[in-house]
């Protein structure tokens, strides 16, 4: 057997070994525009301004809470990447990912804040634990725009972890 033949044999042996390596699971991702977030209670209608690029709180009514879209197929974790603008030096945007019990009460959560000095930025709350059969929710609280600056929620990337 020649050297070339042996080399070919060695390469032929390696290629299927690489192909047999375990494959990573693909995570499910969804992108939403900020305007899809909904006010969480009555009386807030008119407090938020929506357009194609962002949602922002323009009237100081209600508590500024938004419920943002998240749809999950399984009991795994949820990771978010929320694109916001925050120039408000007096208050920040907070966004939480929660796991909810069947009665709606929070079972687990992670909360992250924007910073008023950063302008355009991403905030990324996530819940990576597995809780069988419990729904997830994404909630944000926006301060009202004013002399301290403004806050905008542009979009959110929701990744469902398998």
């Amino acid at each position, binding site marked *: 057997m020649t050297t070339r033949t042996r080399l070919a044999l060695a390469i032929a042996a390696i290629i299927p070994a690489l192909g047999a390596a375990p494959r990573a699971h693909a995570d499910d991702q969804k992108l939403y525009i900020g305007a899809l977030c909904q006010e969480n209670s009555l009386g807030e209608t008119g407090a938020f301004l929506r357009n194609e690029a962002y949602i922002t709180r323009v009237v100081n009514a209600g508590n500024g809470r938004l419920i943002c879209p998240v749809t999950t197929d399984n009991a795994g974790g949820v990771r978010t990447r929320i694109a916001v603008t925050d120039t408000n030096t007096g208050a920040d945007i907070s966004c939480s990912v929660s796991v909810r019990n069947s009665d709606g009460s929070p*079972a687990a959560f992670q909360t992250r804040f924007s910073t008023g000095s950063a302008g355009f930025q991403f905030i990324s709350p996530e819940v990576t634990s597995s809780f069988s059969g419990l729904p997830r929710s994404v909630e944000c609280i926006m301060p009202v725009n004013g002399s301290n600056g403004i806050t905008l929620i542009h979009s959110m990337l929701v990744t469902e972890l398998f």
Partner: protein
Amino acid sequence: MRGKTRALGLAGVILAGIVLLQLLSRGEPSSPTTRGPADHAQAARSPDLSRLERELQALSGKADAADVRRIGAELAQIRASLARQREADLGRDKPVGDARRPDEETAEEQQARQAETIEQSLDAQTVDRTWSQATEAKMAEVVDGMEGVELVGATCKQTVCRVELAHSDPARVTEVIDDLKVTRPFATEGLIIYSGPPEDRHSTLYIAREGFSLPLAVAAASP
């Protein structure tokens, strides 16, 4: 040159053999009813793999030393990969009656397991006095300012706090927790365990220190 050629040829033969074994071991669907741990142990140490190892040892004196070391390292990597695969297969093949995987537990069982993991971490942690006292005081101040809830106790150690609440207004339990999770120092990462009847609802909150994560049990990957 001859030594190098021999080593390359040897590497090809060994890798081809191992890949064949790997493919053969994957060819049969693993069935809990037909394959047990003993079968896996046998597959773990197949005669062919042993023979290849013996051949490598026999030839190691003739081939170039660097090539032999490299081949040996590759062999070790492949063996480790096979061992990991076998462990995963064994986990999947657990018979009914064994401890269930986390993804087979109910949500309540998962929450209880996570709480137990955090409690163990809390027990093991030393106390960062400056941070824990300031945080406990701030938590008490926040809860005092809320309706329908009383603070039973708050204990912070190094990176985690346990906060026990008594809810006097059952209709506001969810609202109280939702308010807390966006209010510092609660607004980090938390796990909430509820107990008691609706008219005497209690909750235990495990809250991570800002910049830290809760010491949760690792979630199992889906099969």
